[in-house]
C-alpha cells in the first residue's frame, strides 16, 4: 500500500503567484499587529503575576457555588473556568495590591473559603518581581533567537538568504502572536517556548529549500532566476510536506491526548508548523527574487573554494 501525496514532478507556481502570497501575508501581519494593539494578549500569571489554582471538586458542576463563595472575598476579578472535565476547575486570581505578602494571604483566604473536600491539584503564585523578569527573559529569548538564526544563515549562505529567512520567520512569529490575540488563549511561558520552537522549525524548513536554491544556482548557470527558484521550491516540496505531516501527526496526538496543561502549547505548535511550511515555500523563496541574489558571487565563491 503506497500513497502519493504529490505528483511525481510538482510544478506549482509559487514564484509567479508571489504577489498573491505577499498580499495575503501582509494582510495577516497587519491584522496580527492590529489585534495585538487592540485586543492584546491574554497573558498568563507567568507574566502578569497573580495566582492560579486548579482544583478537583468532589462532585461535578460546582462552579457556580464556588464562584459565589470566592466573590465574597474581595480579591478583584476572579475567573473560574472548567478545565477539561466538569469537576476540574481552574481559578485565576489577579495579582493583589501589596505584592508578595498579599498574594500569599489571598491563597489562604481562598483555601479557607472553599473548605474541605477539595483536591488542590496545582497552585501557582507568581509575584510581581518574578513575572516581570519572566516576561523580559521571554522577549530576549525570542529576539535573540531571531538574531542568532539570522547570523547563522548569513554565514552559511548569503546575506540575502538570511534576510529572506528572517522575514519569513518574523512573519511566523508575528502571526502566531496574532492568532493568540484573536482567540485569547493564554499566553504564558510555555507559549513563548512554543514560539521559539516555531522559529526553529520554520527556519529548518526554510533552510532546506534555500539549500536547494544554492545548489541549483551552481548547477543551472543560465536559467532565469524566477524559474530556478520555483523549481527549487517544487523539488523540495515533497520533503517539506512530508516532514510537516509527520510533525503535525505527533502534535495532533499531543493536542488531543497530552492533557489540558499542554494543550495551548500544542495548539501554538500546530499553527506554527502550518504557517511555517507556508512561509518557507510561498514567502522565503519568492522573496529571494527581490533581494537580488547574485549568481556571480556564487560562482566566485565556488572558484575561490576550489582554489583554496
Amino acid at each position, binding site marked *: 500500500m503506497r500513497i502519493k501525496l504529490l505528483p511525481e514532478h510538482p510544478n506549482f507556481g509559487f514564484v509567479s503567484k508571489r504577489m498573491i502570497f505577499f498580499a495575503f501575508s501582509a494582510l495577516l501581519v497587519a491584522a496580527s499587529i492590529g489585534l495585538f494593539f487592540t485586543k492584546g494578549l491574554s497573558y498568563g500569571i507567568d507574566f502578569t503575576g497573580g495566582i492560579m489554582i486548579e482544583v478537583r471538586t468532589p462532585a461535578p458542576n460546582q462552579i457556580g457555588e464556588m464562584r459565589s463563595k470566592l466573590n465574597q472575598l474581595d480579591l478583584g476579578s476572579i475567573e473560574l473556568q472548567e478545565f477539561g472535565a466538569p469537576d476540574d476547575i481552574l481559578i485565576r486570581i489577579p495579582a493583589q495590591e501589596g505584592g*508578595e505578602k498579599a498574594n500569599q494571604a489571598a491563597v489562604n483566604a481562598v483555601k479557607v473559603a472553599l473548605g474541605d473536600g477539595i483536591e488542590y491539584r496545582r497552585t501557582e503564585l507568581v509575584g510581581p518581581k518574578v513575572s516581570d523578569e519572566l516576561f523580559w527573559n521571554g522577549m530576549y529569548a525570542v529576539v535573540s533567537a531571531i538574531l542568532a538564526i539570522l547570523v547563522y544563515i548569513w554565514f552559511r549562505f548569503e546575506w540575502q538568504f538570511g534576510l529572506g529567512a528572517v522575514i519569513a520567520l518574523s512573519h511566523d512569529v508575528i502571526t502566531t502572536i496574532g492568532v493568540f490575540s484573536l482567540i485569547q488563549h493564554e499566553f504564558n511561558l510555555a507559549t513563548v*517556548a512554543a514560539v521559539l520552537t516555531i522559529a526553529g522549525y520554520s527556519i529548518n524548513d526554510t533552510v532546506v529549500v534555500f539549500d536547494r536554491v544554492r545548489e541549483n544556482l551552481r548547477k543551472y548557470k543560465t536559467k532565469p532566476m524566477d524559474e530556478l527558484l520555483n523549481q527549487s521550491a517544487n523539488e523540495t516540496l515533497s520533503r517539506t510536506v512530508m516532514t510537516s505531516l509527520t510533525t503535525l501527526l505527533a502534535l495532533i496526538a499531543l493536542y488531543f491526548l497530552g*492533557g489540558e496543561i499542554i494543550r495551548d502549547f500544542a495548539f501554538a505548535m500546530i499553527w506554527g508548523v502550518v504557517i511555517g511550511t507556508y512561509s518557507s515555500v510561498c514567502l522565503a523563496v519568492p522573496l529571494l527574487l527581490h533581494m537580488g541574489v547574485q549568481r556571480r558571487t556564487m560562482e566566485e565563491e565556488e572558484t575561490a573554494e576550489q582554489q583554496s
Partner: protein
Amino acid sequence: MLKIETWKLAVVGILCALGFAFAAPNLLNSDTAGALPDFLPKSQINLGLDLQGGSHLLLEVEVGVVVKERLESLVDAIRTELRKERILYGGLGASATGVNVTIKNAAEAEKAYDIIRKLDVGFETNLGDSGHIVMNLTEQALKERRVAAVEQSIEIVRRRVDPQGIKEPTITRQGDDRILLQVPGEDDPEKLKKLLGQTAKLTFHLLDDKGSLADAMAGRVPPGSMLLPSVDEYDSLGKPRMYLLKKRVAVSGDTLVSASLGFDQGNRPAVNFRLDAVGGKKFADITRQNLGKPFAIVLDKKVISAPTIQGIIPGGSGQITSGSFTTESAKELSLLLSAGALPAPLTVLEERSVGPGLGADSVEAGKIASIVGLVLVVAFMIIYYGRLGVFANIALAMNMVLIVALLSAFGATLTLPGIAGIVLTIGMAVDANVLVFERIREELRTGRGVMSAVDAGYKRAFGTIMDANITTLIAAALLFAFGSGPVQGFAVTLAFGIMSSMFTAIWVTRILVSIWLRRTRPTTLIV
C-alpha cells in the same frame, strides 16, 4: 556505500548498546534499579515536580535588612563611644549605605574621627569640614555581607527543612540574593512557608524602667530604647500590649546551642533552651545584676514574655513560657530556634505546587500522547516509504531509546513540557530520513543505479540535514539560556532529541540500508 568501515560499524554499535544500557534502568522500579551493582548504569530519569508532585518556592533574602541592622548597631556604637568620651555631637543617623554624624566642637573632630574609624571594618570613613564625619560601607563589604547572608540563609533553610522528614529537598542559590527550594512529594507549600516565614531571631533584653511607657507610646522613645509589641497579650482596646525595652541585647540567641519542647510547672507547653559557655556566663551575670527586674524574651521583634528574674540562672539553661503556646507551636519554635535565625527575612517570590494526582495524570497523558504520536508517524512512514520507512522507524525507535538514555545519564529532569519536546521530536526526527529518501528518489529518477542513488542520497542530504538541525539547536540553546524550570526541561529534551535523531537517521539507517542492499542486491528500488 555498501562497505562501511568496520570501525564505524563498531562505533555505531557501541553507542547503540550504551543507549540500551543507560535506558534500561528506567524499566525497573526505583528500588531494584538502586540495588544494581555499581559498574552498571543505574540512574533513572528524574521526574520534574510537575510530574511527580511537589512544591517549588523561589525565595528572596531581604539583604537590605542585614545592612540596615549593621548600620543601626554602628549608630549605637558611635553614640556609646562619643558619650563615654564626652564629645558633643549632632545629626547622628544611618543613611541607605552609611552613617553620618557631626562633631560640634571642631577641636574634637580629629579625636572623634579616630575613635569612630576603629569601630567597624568595611567602612570608608571621611572627615569633612566643620566636623562632619561620613562612614560609607565599601562596595566590597556590601557584597561580602550579601553573599554571607544568602549563604547563611541557605544553611538555615536546610536545617529547618531537613528535620521534616522530606525526601530529597533541593536547596540552591539563584542569582545574587535568591534561594530556590524544591521539595518533591510535598504538595502543601503552606507547611514550608510557615517554616521559613520567621527569621526566628531570639534576643533577651532588659526593660527600660526609667523611661515612661506612655511617653514612648506617644512617639517619644528615649534613645537607646525601643518599643515592641507583645505576641499574645492585649490591652483593654484589643491592641497588643507594648513594652519599652533597652535596645542593647543583653544575651543574644546566637549563643543558643539547643532548644526542645518542654513543660512548665503547670504542665503547659514550653520551650527549653540551652546556651553555650559564653552565653551561659552572660546569662548568669545579667540575672545576678538584675534580680527582681523584668527581663524580656524577644522573638522577631515581638515580646514572647517578660518574666521577672527570680534568681540567678547559672549554666545557661532556661525555659521560655507563653500563654499562647500549644504543644505544636512550642515544638515548632524549638525547631526554629535550634536551626538558628535567618540573617534576614525571606520573601516568597514565586510558588508552584502540583498535587501527586495531577502529576500522575500528566505522566499518563504524556505516555499516551507519545505512543499514539509514535504509532501514527511509524504507520505513515511505512505507508509512504515502504521498506526504507521500516528502516527509518527502527532508527526512530533507537532515537527514543537514546533520548531516554541521555536524560538518565546526564541526570536531566523530565518535565511536562519535556514530554511535549519528546513528542515533537518524534515528528521531527524522521525529517533527516525524509531528506535522504527524497534525495534517493530524485537520484533514481535521473536514471542512476540503486547503489549509486542511495550513496548520493546520503552524501548530498548531509549538508542540508546539518544546516536544518543547527538552527533548531540554536533555538533550543536560547530556550535553555533564558527559560526557567519546565521550559528548560523542554529545551533539554528538544536538544537531545535533535542530536540523537541526527545520529540515528544518518548512521543507523545507513547501516541498515547497506546491509539490506548487500544481501539482496536489488536492481530496482521503490522509494
